[in-house]
């Protein structure tokens, strides 16, 4: 079952072509990494997929349901969240708890199970001790971690992550990739992740999409080479 289906997507901003000929799928249990040089429109592609931007050509289909036939829940971590820097009056715990709202809790009280999810999510990124801190007082790396904790608390069917490991050390990155891999292979989650660490992550991801610059285009336009299946080292 495909959670994301991108067909021949093209995107242009005013007259400038930015993306062309993008086609790929992300299914349940797929761990897909998206790479490309700086300015390769990786974030623009994610924003097209999520519906934050409208493709100029082609189509993006987001499955309305997950593999169990329930409404598909998406967990998105963007590169930068403006409110983090604006003294937003919220504790770490409040923010991570808000990840549970998407799980049918917009108008209901969070229960024991929700609180357990939140605790485990905060522990998985090493932020449980910081739960009563104001989010604006955290460092860049810590803010990134609680964004991830929030998404883990949501327990989405599809993770869409934009350079989520910025500010993490090697060990934390390794732990994070293992956690994602566990989510995709054991719990059937789909993952689409923009990253620069393709050497580190290739042992965990199933597919690799690289955005490459089109040589024949007069604009700084990017396209995808192919969607490579990644071979796994023998365990």
């Amino acid at each position, binding site marked *: 079952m495909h959670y994301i289906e991108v067909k021949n997507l093209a995107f242009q901003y005013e007259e400038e072509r930015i993306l062309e000929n993008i086609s790929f799928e992300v299914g349940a249990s797929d761990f897909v990494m998206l790479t490309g040089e700086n300015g390769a429109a990786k974030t623009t592609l994610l924003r097209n997929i999520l519906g934050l931007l409208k493709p100029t050509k082609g189509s993006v289909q987001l499955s309305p349901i997950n593999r169990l036939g329930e409404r598909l829940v998406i*967990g998105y971590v*963007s590169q930068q*969240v403006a409110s983090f820097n604006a003294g*937003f*009056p919220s504790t770490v715990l409040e923010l991570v708890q808000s990840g549970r*709202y*998407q799980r049918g809790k*917009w*108008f209901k009280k969070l229960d024991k199970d929700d609180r357990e999810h939140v605790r485990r999510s905060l522990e998985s990124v090493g932020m449980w001790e910081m739960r009563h801190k104001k989010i604006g007082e955290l460092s860049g790396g810590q803010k990134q971690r609680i964004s991830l904790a929030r998404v883990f608390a949501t327990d989405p069917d599809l993770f869409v992550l934009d350079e989520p490991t910025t500010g993490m050390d090697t060990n934390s990155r390794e732990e994070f990739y293992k956690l994602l891999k566990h989510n995709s292979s054991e719990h059937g989650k789909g993952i689409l992740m923009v990253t620069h660490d393709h050497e580190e992550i290739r042992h965990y991801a199933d597919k690799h999409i690289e955005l490459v610059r089109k040589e024949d285009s007069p604009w700084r336009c990017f396209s995808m080479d192919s969607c490579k299946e990644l071979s796994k080292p023998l365990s």
Partner: protein
Amino acid sequence: MEMFFHGFMQRAFQASFLISLIAPILGLFLILRRQSLMADTLSHVSLAGVALGLLIGVNPTFTNILVVSVIAIVLEYLRVVYRTYSEISIAILMSAGMALALVLMGLNDGGATLSMNQFLFGSIVTISEQQVWMLLILTIIIGLLYLIFRKPLYILTFDEETAFTAGLPIKTMSVLFNILTGITIAVTMPIVGALLVSAIIVLPAAISMRLSNRFNGVILIGIVLALIGMFSGLVVSYKIGTPPGASITLILLIVFVITIFMKKILHYIKREKLFKSTDMSVD
């Protein structure tokens, strides 16, 4: 005590109590959505609504609500068009509202100057029972909407893209929020005045944001601060005959300065304590 026996003062206190309940809720969302000046824009526009009402002989509060609601929708459209420079929409509509108000007042041959003054600077004498009832209905609506939708509003305010991917109707929510802000300004304006209504909405939340780490905490402290500012402002206004909006704003500003000062002192004391305990542990 004698002031509490006057009907107009009783209505003024009732209205102030209700404004104190809704101002911090709207104020906090306005600040966090970087729309503090939107309240100012809408108050300028609402002058045009009042001028229109006085010109055509209809209750100015009703024409005001209509005009402000339309402009609140236009504001949201312009905010999206000029996403990077969202203050442009504020600059355009603020001057447009003021210009329109002046033209409409000019067409009225100066007959409504007295009423316009009341709307500009506010008046506690003119608060009618009808206005208190309108405020009560508005307070109930805003209170209920906040209680029901506080979780979606929290996400919308935190990050619109996160809210969108979570499946929230962000456009509809933003427009409804703007309209509610507009209606609040239209109903509150005759009491506190067009020039200072935005300060009364924004200041309690701005102060309480420095006093609480939690979202609901900011709103609760904001309500207490608004009550202090509104009630003491009314008393001052009654005793020395100053415009209520100006008295309330000045009192809230004094609270703001005291808060900053106290926070600095507390921070200093905490730091000194920490240094002392570190020194002792080294010894």
